[in-house]
């Protein structure tokens, strides 16, 4: 079995892109007009948010595939993408809180964007916990796929929260809303974070698939005494 896989290259490429983008954002990009140097958190916060939402959406697609086909590969996809989404989501909340303190004067507020993001984290953590508590592979696939689809409903709510409600959180960050001097490092950081996420998710998928396939192939433990009594002649 090969020890270096394509996932390692994608992961390393993501790290390099992210390193270049963050060096650009931290040391070469201009300070933000109102937030000053604190505005540089943009280059880590926004890509984390985008890729986190993409990971949850990939978990949602895997959940539909798992329900449709019943295959272990899709089930492993739910686990891998939900894990990536949860890590990015937790980082997102941390970065947002650190950014909020110098700009809003508070670490946390029950703003719609923040609240729905926190709910999204709890929902997907619940999906991962649920997967650990259900032992039967078939039941686990069905239950976690349904739970993932239910949890994903919050993803578009998080995305559109800044449009649907009056929020303290700023509007979408895009080339239309971000200064030209900030677009390039932001875009590079987004691609870096995406490649890193793909590499990690692919590796987590591979290890989850082997573990789940092992569990699915494991023979049922025989009810030994009953079988011996029912078919004594077969033992001869």
């Amino acid at each position, binding site marked *: *079995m*090969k*020890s270096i*896989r394509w*996932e*390692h290259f994608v*992961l390393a490429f993501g*790290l390099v892109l*992210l390193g270049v983008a*963050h060096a650009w954002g*931290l040391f070469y990009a201009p*300070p933000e*007009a*109102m*937030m*000053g*140097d*604190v505005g*540089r*958190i943009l280059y*880590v*916060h926004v890509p*984390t948010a985008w890729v986190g939402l993409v990971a949850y959406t990939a978990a949602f697609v895997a959940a539909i595939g798992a329900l449709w086909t019943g295959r272990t590969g899709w089930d492993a996809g739910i686990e891998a993408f939900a894990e990536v989404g949860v*890590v990015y989501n*937790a*980082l997102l909340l*941390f*970065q947002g809180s*650190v*950014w909020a*303190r*110098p*700009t809003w004067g508070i670490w946390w507020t029950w703003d719609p964007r923040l609240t729905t993001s926190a709910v999204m984290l709890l929902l997907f953590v619940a999906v991962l916990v649920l997967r650990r508590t259900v032992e039967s592979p078939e039941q686990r696939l069905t239950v976690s796929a349904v739970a993932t689809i239910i949890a994903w409903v919050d993803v578009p709510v998080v995305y559109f929260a800044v449009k649907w409600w009056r929020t303290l959180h700023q509007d979408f960050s895009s080339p239309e809303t971000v200064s030209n001097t900030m677009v390039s490092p932001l875009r590079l950081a987004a691609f870096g974070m995406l490649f*890193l996420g793909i*590499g*990690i998710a692919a*590796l*987590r998928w*591979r*290890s989850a698939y*082997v573990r789940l*396939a*092992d569990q699915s192939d494991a023979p049922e433990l025989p009810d030994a005494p009953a079988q011996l009594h029912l078919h004594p002649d077969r033992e001869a």
Partner: protein
Amino acid sequence: MDPAQTDAIATGMIQGGWEYVWAAYGVSWAVLLAFAAIAILGATPSRLRRTP
């Protein structure tokens, strides 16, 4: 104080705050590198070998 800094203060730009920037980047990089390491170590050939 240099003129650029005086202008920045006059416009209401937040001054300083690098400790928040380093905290956000430092923790993010640490967590992402740890997660990448866990993913790599969890998918080594010996760990991916199916149980007979």
